[in-house]
């Protein structure tokens, strides 16, 4: 995967280990292998879905890309710029290009600031506007996310979950970024308003030519919005493909298991499907299994799976998978 002009974000072998300290002298006794060698590209204007169970490292991936954690290893190229080599102030400047929308709309807004302060803060700290101009821009941003500008003087706790999430979206849009990490932006919302927020994100994407990394914990949530989908398990990406390709011909046993858990509306087709039930629990990221991360739960695991880590390879054009035996599922 080499960088070219329609690639906006290039992530190369990203590793994020959180050290664990113990004892009086705070010695490091281990590490949480939250992200362990993740590579992918995000193309301009597309939405890449990132899916995986809770705790598999999705948020950490998004946050490490945005340089909110100092990566243990790897490379992040954004629009050609190597983010990890940027100085503090350069990175701060770069942040205008890359924003984030959070999962929990209650926790991600400062309860002591008004909506106007929250949405206007990015403009203020980057000197993008001053005084009255900030007010006008805030009003405009609120309209963009379908909130009345008359709410500007209110505090976050006066709003419903969906409304708060839209305040978060307005804040992310304030600096006119090109890339937004959407970290499970709808998981915490009522089902009835999830669609509204997704539609809003899509409309905004079209209007401003935004690129999304859209994180979710189940495949049905990203299906509608994503152009391509990456499936993550215990710190690694196990499969990445165009959406329709991934849903119709999953090549990794884990993806197959996830898909078989998703109910499909046609009962006949549903009955014909082969069900893969996952056994056991996700192993601890402090002490991940050797070789293939998935081998402790994989129905077709073999000796080699414990010995060598499967390479993340391109089996079909644009279809990447990390499994020794993925060929079996090719038709």
């Amino acid at each position, binding site marked *: 995967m080499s960088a070219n002009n329609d690639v906006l974000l290039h992530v190369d072998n990203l590793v994020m280990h959180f050290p664990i300290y113990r004892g009086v002298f705070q010695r490091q006794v281990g590490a949480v292998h939250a992200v362990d060698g993740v590579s992918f590209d995000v193309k301009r204007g597309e939405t890449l879905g990132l899916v995986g169970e809770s705790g598999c490292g999705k948020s950490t991936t998004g*946050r490490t890309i*945005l340089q*909110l954690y100092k990566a243990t290893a790897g490379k992040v190229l954004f629009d050609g710029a190597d983010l990890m080599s940027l100085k503090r102030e350069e990175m*701060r*400047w770069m*942040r*205008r290009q890359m*924003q*984030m929308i*959070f*999962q*929990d709309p209650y*926790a*991600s*807004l*400062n*309860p*002591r*600031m008004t909506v106007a302060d929250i949405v206007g*803060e*990015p403009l203020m*700290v*980057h000197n993008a506007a001053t005084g009255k101009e900030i007010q006008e821009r805030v009003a405009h941003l609120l309209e963009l996310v*379908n909130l*009345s500008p008359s*709410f500007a003087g*209110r*505090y976050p*706790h*006066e*709003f*419903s979950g*969906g*409304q708060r999430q*839209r305040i*978060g979206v307005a*804040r992310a849009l304030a*600096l006119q970024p090109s890339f937004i990490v959407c970290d499970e932006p709808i998981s915490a919302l009522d*089902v009835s308003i*999830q*669609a*509204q927020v*997704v*539609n*809003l994100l*899509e*409309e905004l994407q079209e209007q401003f030519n935004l690129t999304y990394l859209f994180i979710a914990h189940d495949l*049905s*949530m990203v*299906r*509608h*919005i994503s152009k391509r989908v990456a499936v993550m398990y215990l710190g690694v990406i196990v499969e990445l493909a165009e959406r329709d390709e991934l849903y119709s011909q999953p090549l990794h046993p884990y993806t197959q298991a996830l898909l078989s858990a*998703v*109910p*499909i*509306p046609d009962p006949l087709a549903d009955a014909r499907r082969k069900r893969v039930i996952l056994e056991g629990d996700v192993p601890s990221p402090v002490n991940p299994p050797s070789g293939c991360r998935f081998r402790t739960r994989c129905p077709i695991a073999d000796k080699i799976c414990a010995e060598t880590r499967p390479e993340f390879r391109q089996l079909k054009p644009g279809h990447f998978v990390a499994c020794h035996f993925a060929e079996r599922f090719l038709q």
Partner: protein
Amino acid sequence: MTETTPSGDNTLLRETAAIREIGRLERFLGPENYRIMVGLLKTPASIIGFVLIGVFIIIALAAPVIAPPVTPNDPYKIPRDGFSSEPQPMGSPWTRKTPPVPFWYEPIMGTDQWVHILGTSQGQYDVFYGIIWGTRTAFRTGLIVTIATFLIGIIIGSVSAYYGGIVDNIIMRVVDIFLTLPFILAALILAAVLTPRIGKSLFPAIIALVTFGWMGYARIIRGDILSIKERDYIMAARVIGVKDSRILFRHIIPNAIFPTLVLASLAIGDVVLSFAALSFLGIGTEVGYADWGQVLSFARNWITSLNTYWYIVVWPGLTLVLYVMGFNLVGDALRDVLDPRMRGKS
């Protein structure tokens, strides 16, 4: 498949009436702090506490009217009625240098003969004056000590939490060491050392109480900052590109400071108790200064005959107890409201 379907109709989203109605106070304080306030105002014990504190505030404000001073430019000097050492009983008339009679006295008592309402103590110091003007002293010392310890605690705690690592480790060890010192004894020694240097006044005791009183605040604010630091809105501020100093002052401290602030304001009672203790032991103000500990200390030589002279210890003692109780009642209620967050309090 629970797939989300596009409706293309976001006009539905224009909720205008869905906004939750909330009061001014909640808006101003934010939801967490508001919950604390409401919790406090709902507990009967804390209401009694607030009433007691309120009464003392009124006494302090109205002191010149309740007990007009003999020497208006030195009102904290307790007026004396002679120099004999034996206390005079309650209601005995003023004989020398009678202070101005307060306006409320004649309508109630039907006479303009000003008496020692609560008697006189050793050296003919008027107990009533000592208590009334002592209320002002109590608030003054309480406020000065509390504000100073609060500020020092906030600064040290913030620095510790903000820099983390070695700085945090060192500061927290220093806090531990200070906490192992016996508070009153340490304060007593420091005040005793300071008194000959800066003279007899409120200050030696104030400095001593501040020196050994800031650690609790430092710990609490440090804990609160560390917990606030992990909130998503701090992460959000970093994503936006807010500078560290602004994150600390605009995002972290305003959200972390409220519990410490409330605790501090309730610590005034304890400060006054410690202050009275130092004063009783003879460290602090010059003899005759209106201060509860000082008034109590007049009783030291009469302990064996307190069944005759009970009023020289009961009235100032009761005043002190009610004052401290007022703050403690509110403080206990606060602890209940804050409960899960009280870990780490000294």
